[in-house]
């Protein structure tokens, strides 16, 4: 079955509303270049925020998010309509983040000082002296990549276990386990701030 037949077969069941991603993608594949802007407009903030939380810093967000959408632009005609567009988009985003982290890790090996400069500040005596959300963000940044990304996809992006498994190309059981381990680790990291978080 060719792509077009596949698309026609899938679309009637998949399209719930006219502004569904599949319909927009179909328009783009049919030659309507402006349809791509709709997809960007819909998902850019989710992508930017996912990159921000995954990397834990703001420097490379713009570059990476643009690279994500350029990849989408180049590969959209290969989209199979077998999973949600967002799952596919997040997979690209995660891969780009991982590439970036890998480069940063290699770079840090050759830099005179380790990159381990950011530490969670000691709990202050008064609650108003620090930002809880900043503490959580820094705690998330402390998690290993393989635990941080599933946790963010679940709790921040709101993806289901199945969608995370597809985006990460791992088993559902592994997703469940990694999210649990991420929470457990985060719980221990944020132990000193427990009273303020709960």
């Amino acid at each position, binding site marked *: 079955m060719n792509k077009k037949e596949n698309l026609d077969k899938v679309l009637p069941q998949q399209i719930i509303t006219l502004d569904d991603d599949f319909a927009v993608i179909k328009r783009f594949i049919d030659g309507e270049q402006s349809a791509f*802007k709709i997809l*960007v*407009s819909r998902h*850019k*903030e989710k992508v*930017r*925020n996912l990159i*921000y*939380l995954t990397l834990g810093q*703001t420097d490379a*967000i*713009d570059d990476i*998010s*643009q690279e994500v*959408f*350029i990849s989408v*632009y180049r590969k959209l005609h290969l989209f199979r309509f077998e999973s949600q567009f967002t799952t596919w988009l997040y997979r690209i985003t995660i891969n780009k983040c991982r590439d970036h982290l890998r480069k940063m*890790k290699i770079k840090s*090996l*050759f*830099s*005179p*000082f*380790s990159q*381990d*400069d950011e*530490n969670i*500040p*000691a709990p202050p005596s008064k609650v108003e002296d620090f930002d*809880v*959300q900043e503490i*959580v*963000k820094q705690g*998330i940044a402390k998690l*290993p990549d*393989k635990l941080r990304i599933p*946790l*963010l996809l*679940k*709790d*921040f992006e*709101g993806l289901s*276990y199945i969608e995370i498994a597809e985006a990460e190309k791992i088993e559902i059981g592994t997703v*469940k*386990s990694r*999210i*649990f381990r991420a*929470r*457990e680790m*985060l*719980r221990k990291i*944020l132990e000193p701030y*427990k009273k303020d*978080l*709960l």
Partner: protein
Amino acid sequence: MSISYKDLEKISAYIDGGLSDTERAYIEERIATSKEYKKIYDEYVALKQSVSSLPSLPEDLYFETRLMQRISEEKSSFLKIILTKKPVLVFTLLTIFLMLLLREYPDFFNDSINEGQKNLAAFYSQNLKPLVFAADLNKEAIFDFAFNQTIPINESTGQVLALGRDKDGKEFLEMKFSENNPSDFKLDHFISSLNLTPEQEKEVDSILLSYSDDIATNILVNENNALAVSKNIWSYQNAIRTDLLQYAAKISKDVSKFLHKDIISLSNDDKKFISMTDKENNNFIFITPDTFFTKQIDVDKKLLEKDLFTAKKLDKSNRTVLNIVPNININVKKRTVEANADNDIKVFVGGNNIKIELRKIEIPPIPNVPNISSNETQAVVVSIDSLDEMIEDAVNKFKAFSFSWTEKENKKGKKKNHFFMDSLKIGENIPKEFQFEFKKLDSLQHYLNRFFSDSLTNYNWKEWNENMQQFQKEMEKFREEMNLWRKESEKQKQQNKKTEIKFNLEI
């Protein structure tokens, strides 16, 4: 009561709605009845809410504009690459084509070169005629050929072919312009020195002229400007010289009175040479305007003799009409060309001068049986020992390495080590204060993990260990093989000694 790891995972999955009905009922019951379960549940819920309520980045209003501009730039740059890198693309495609071609047909180039060489050799070896068509071989010319090592190939240009053997006994072939050397040993001198009678002169003439046809059919030319010289020509040269000297010896017992010593000594060697020469050798050396090569050709001697007979019937002026003169005029810088196809000839090219040397054939030494000297065995033993030392040395070097770091306090006042990658030194010449000794690789790993504590390092370390184990196995195998070889060598050496003793006794 402590909560099991499995139950903790179930609580986590419960808040995500990722449990089966049974599991969900179990966890709900536990949360409802156990304070500890409830505490963990509350903490997980709080964490989930904390993560989900993290603030988003401020919206980037110009994101689409910048993205679309970048996409359009990428599109045009792709087109630019196609247009500007066209030669590169062509080259790449050509390379891929050649790779595929060579994969399917690995001998393509060798075959093509061989085919080209064959075609060239075929072109230059066709329709060869005797040299007599180009130059009139009289008795003086044949005498010159025998004693002065030159033979005319073109009277009008004065080109001669010099061939003979040098002081080292190496045959050479040289094309050059004739030089009147007053020290040359001429036929007149030969006759006058021996005081030959007219009858004896005729006998000498007949000896010389009897070789005329042989020389003419062993130096061939054709209209393609090729000169083909049979390797037998040196044998004929020696044969003529020997015949004349033998005749001279008959006439005068003291031949050395009028002949130079060099000629006498050369002629003694010639006798042996002639007897060893295969006169049916059809291997010809080709000198052409393009190349030099040797080739086995089937010479139809009857046809050549017929050509010769026809030519001789004509007088000299008519022969000129049939002249086929090899007009070899190669203008190249003076250089030495090593002939690849035949490593037994050496070609010298300089202006219009071509010199070809046949190399002396080296007979390989016949090996003694068995041929293992004690020195060689010892050398191997030494290398085995030194190999051990080298390995140990290398391992020691790896054990002793250094790096430096600084202690830095964080905001909490906690001290942390900061590693300087460029300070890492392995091996010798490390200041003592920076030296560390690690007894085991594991302890080294422990130190490294302090600085590179991620899964990538661990993975690489595992791979390193596997590689080292593999290397160790290979070294053990090599060592076993070397020991076996050493034992066999010793055994062989003992046998040699026995053989030598027995041989001496027989003598």
